[in-house]
């Protein structure tokens, strides 16, 4: 786990292997924990029992380390990405017309088919790379590095939204309402952004705060209903997505609310320049101040979760709400606060869309599916702040590269959706990935070494 959880000594949560309630499967509770007890058992029984030669020999350091790598969670994340890209490659190759043409005479010249497969897959993935990291076809460095800044621009709302979903996960809740929260936040921020005339800086801050409050309140409905009536937040947030969509659609086509004056399109006017996020690297790059806000949000979420008492209560509720209640934590209050913060973070994603990425006025499609992508980002990041940050950048790269892949190679952008969702599916089921790659299952070794152990105990 990449989440730095310092040993807090007597803190009740310190023994918890991981607060990753969302996707941890019970079978693989904690690889580190498993090996630790294994070691303890080995040392405890070591002197008492005359070791049978070759049977209970403690494994060498290298073996233990390899094993820890192979049974750890990081390797699963990497392999899941590899596997998903592999499936994507198969899809690209099978639907490529050149491959289809060459496979018509596969048995005559199989090399042609293989070459066509290689060309289509390599072409697509190199376009993906050049569209997201560095474009080698450009002459100077500034033009070449532009894709990377695009990646960070796409990553900004994904990180913010992913943090929101991750925070809710840590409290044991699913915030599937990212779309609605983003739409409401974008509407509030956009309305402040174009409807008012405030000095530079202040305008931006007011619009930002307005958006965050809007997102927080929209998510707060779900939190309040869960706290007061026990309504399941999954259902409520899904329904609120649609309510928000229709509400914003109506406001966008009603003159005097969000619609641009003198226009009949369901679109807002452009943002006031005073409210727009400043560019970070000058006007030739799209990267805007929102990225700094996303970094700040990551730090704040990290601080809340692992350094504040509120975060401690959050995690306690997430791991076991009944125990938390017995310990005197106001569980219902935590649900409500968590949804507020989660909604504010998704609101940040919405605000960065309207004040940073699309400043010429927005439509009801401003969320661009980020509300759902945020869920996959949080899952890939295993609900930890910095994991989510990294996952957000990875998915931002997929998005940025996906567009250039579509332009250069004609591979539809939807392949990115497939790859993203496959990554999450594979990550959610580590035993599946381990089976596919033939890795040892965690817990398989303790079972094997337990047998001689019990024999020894019986022999006494």
């Amino acid at each position, binding site marked *: 786990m990449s989440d730095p959880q310092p040993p807090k000594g007597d803190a009740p949560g310190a023994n918890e292997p991981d607060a990753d309630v969302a996707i941890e499967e019970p079978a693989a509770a904690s690889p580190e924990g498993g090996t630790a007890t294994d070691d303890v058992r080995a040392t405890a029984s070591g002197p008492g029992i005359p070791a049978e030669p070759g049977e209970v020999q403690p494994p060498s350091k290298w073996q233990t380390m390899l094993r820890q790598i192979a049974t750890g969670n990081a390797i699963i994340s990497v392999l899941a990405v590899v596997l998903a890209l592999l499936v994507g490659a198969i*899809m690209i190759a099978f639907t490529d017309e050149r491959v289809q043409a060459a496979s018509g005479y596969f048995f005559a010249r199989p090399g042609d088919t293989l070459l066509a497969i290689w060309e289509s897959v390599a072409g697509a993935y190199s376009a993906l790379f050049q569209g997201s990291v560095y474009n080698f076809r450009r002459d100077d460095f500034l033009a070449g590095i532009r894709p990377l800044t695009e990646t960070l621009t796409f990553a900004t709302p994904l990180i913010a939204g992913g943090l929101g979903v991750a925070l809710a996960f840590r409290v044991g809740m699913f915030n599937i309402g990212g779309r609605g929260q983003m739409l409401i936040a974008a509407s509030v921020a956009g309305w402040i952004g174009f409807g008012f005339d405030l000095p530079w800086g202040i305008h931006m801050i007011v619009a930002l705060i307005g958006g965050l409050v809007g997102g927080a309140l929209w998510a707060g409905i779900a939190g309040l209903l869960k706290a007061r*009536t026990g309504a399941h937040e999954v259902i409520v947030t899904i329904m609120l997505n649609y309510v928000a969509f229709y509400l914003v659609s109506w406001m966008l086509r009603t003159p005097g609310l969000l619609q641009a004056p003198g226009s009949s399109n369901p679109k807002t006017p452009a943002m006031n320049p005073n409210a727009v996020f400043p560019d970070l690297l000058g006007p030739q790059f799209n990267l805007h101040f929102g990225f700094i806000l996303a970094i700040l949000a990551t730090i704040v979420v990290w601080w809340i979760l692992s350094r504040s008492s509120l975060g401690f209560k959050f995690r306690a509720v997430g791991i076991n709400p009944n125990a938390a209640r017995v310990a005197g934590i106001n569980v219902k209050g935590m649900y409500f606060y968590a949804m507020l913060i989660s909604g504010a973070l998704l609101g940040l994603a919405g605000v960065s869309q309207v004040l940073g990425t699309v400043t010429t006025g927005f439509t009801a499609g401003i969320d661009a599916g980020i509300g759902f992508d945020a869920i996959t980002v949080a899952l890939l990041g295993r609900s930890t702040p910095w994991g989510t940050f990294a996952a957000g950048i990875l998915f931002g790269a997929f998005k940025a590269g996906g567009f250039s892949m579509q332009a250069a190679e004609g591979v539809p952008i939807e392949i990115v*959706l497939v790859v993203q969702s496959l990554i999450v599916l594979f990550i959610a089921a580590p035993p599946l990935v381990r089976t596919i790659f033939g890795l040892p299952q965690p817990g398989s070794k303790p079972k094997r070494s337990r047998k001689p152990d019990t024999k020894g105990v019986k022999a006494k």
Partner: protein
Amino acid sequence: MSRTVEHHRVAPQPDALATTVVTSWKAPIAFAIFTLIALALAVFAPRPGETTYRWSRETDAIQVPDLTVPAMQALWAVVALLAVSTLYSVLLVRSKRRVPLWLIVVFALLFMFGFLTWAGAGSSLPMIGLLFGSLSLAVPLIYGSLAGVIGERAGVVNIAIEAQLLSGAFTAAVVASITGQPWLGLIAAMVAGMLVGMVLAAFAIKYFVDQVIVGVVLNVLVVGLTSFFFSQVLAPNAAALNTPPRFDRLHIPVLGDIPIIGPVFFRQTIIVYLMYIAVALVYIGLFHTRWGLRVRAVGEHPQAADTVGIRVNSTRFWNVALAGAIAGLGGTFFTIGSGIAFNKEMTAGAGFIALAAVIFGQWDPIKATLAALLFGFASNLQNTLSVIGSPVPSEFMLMLPYVVTIFAVAGLVGKSRAPAADGKPYIKS
């Protein structure tokens, strides 16, 4: 409220006391709100003119005369009747009696009549078209909600209804286009929906992945897959791969000639007739057969079910697969059911409305079907009103199913209690 009770127990949570209240003020309060809405329409937004309800088409064998009412007089009469029902319900609750179901139904119909009369003032409402369209729009919702009911009764939350509908629509379009046989498309759609259901079941049951996560991810995955293949394969070869034949409407001889009911219910496609059968089968199956008893046992108390020898996980797996097949069948409505070519994300959230219908229908196949019909009516009413020039923004009509569901989940409308083990994996110890 029983104040004496409060002295006896040291209540840590004040809302625990609310359960001791026998009578519920929900119905009178809701009645009062709707009466006020009707009153507000009459006072603040009067619409002159007459409203004509057309009950039959020119081609029908038996003609039902049109009903023409003066809009405002009718609305005021409705407001008066609504007020009377509200007062009656208040009296009932004050004398510690329950508000009977018939009163609620009458109230709802009255309100609907008042609203329609007000909204349609100065024009005529094609009632057959309105009801026929409602049923048609409800078809995928009903199939989806049946799938949701089976899955959740077996203890597996199915957020992936949307994915199953979409995969069904896609597969049906492709297979029916290639073979020219809509029946083959229907079967292929069931297989596709079943496969999605099996993936859900495998991840949820074998790998204990949270069911909501799998459902959400499957939705994204199926949207991605179908859109990818649509752009990459279907769009360039639309003539060969994406021109599905459609099922013809079947006129059932005698039933189809009944005025009003006939044109609405018995001049539909085979998909709708299969739906009637499916609703009946699922209802009878769930509550009157051994299969249903097992499904419900597995969803309510898997440990107890296991103790008496029911194999919990395989029961769950096969029922989620079956549910997927039903939802996939519902997806055919979008393509071969209406003769429309497949398009990206063409289900447009129908799966989520179906999920809403499951909850609003309290996990009961009949009630879920009625909820789906209500949602279909709401969205078709919006279509009809926008044709005749609606005074209500269409977005608010479209919002209705979702708002109603939020109220339902929050316990403001009826009681909503999921199967006890819904969403919890069963780990045999």
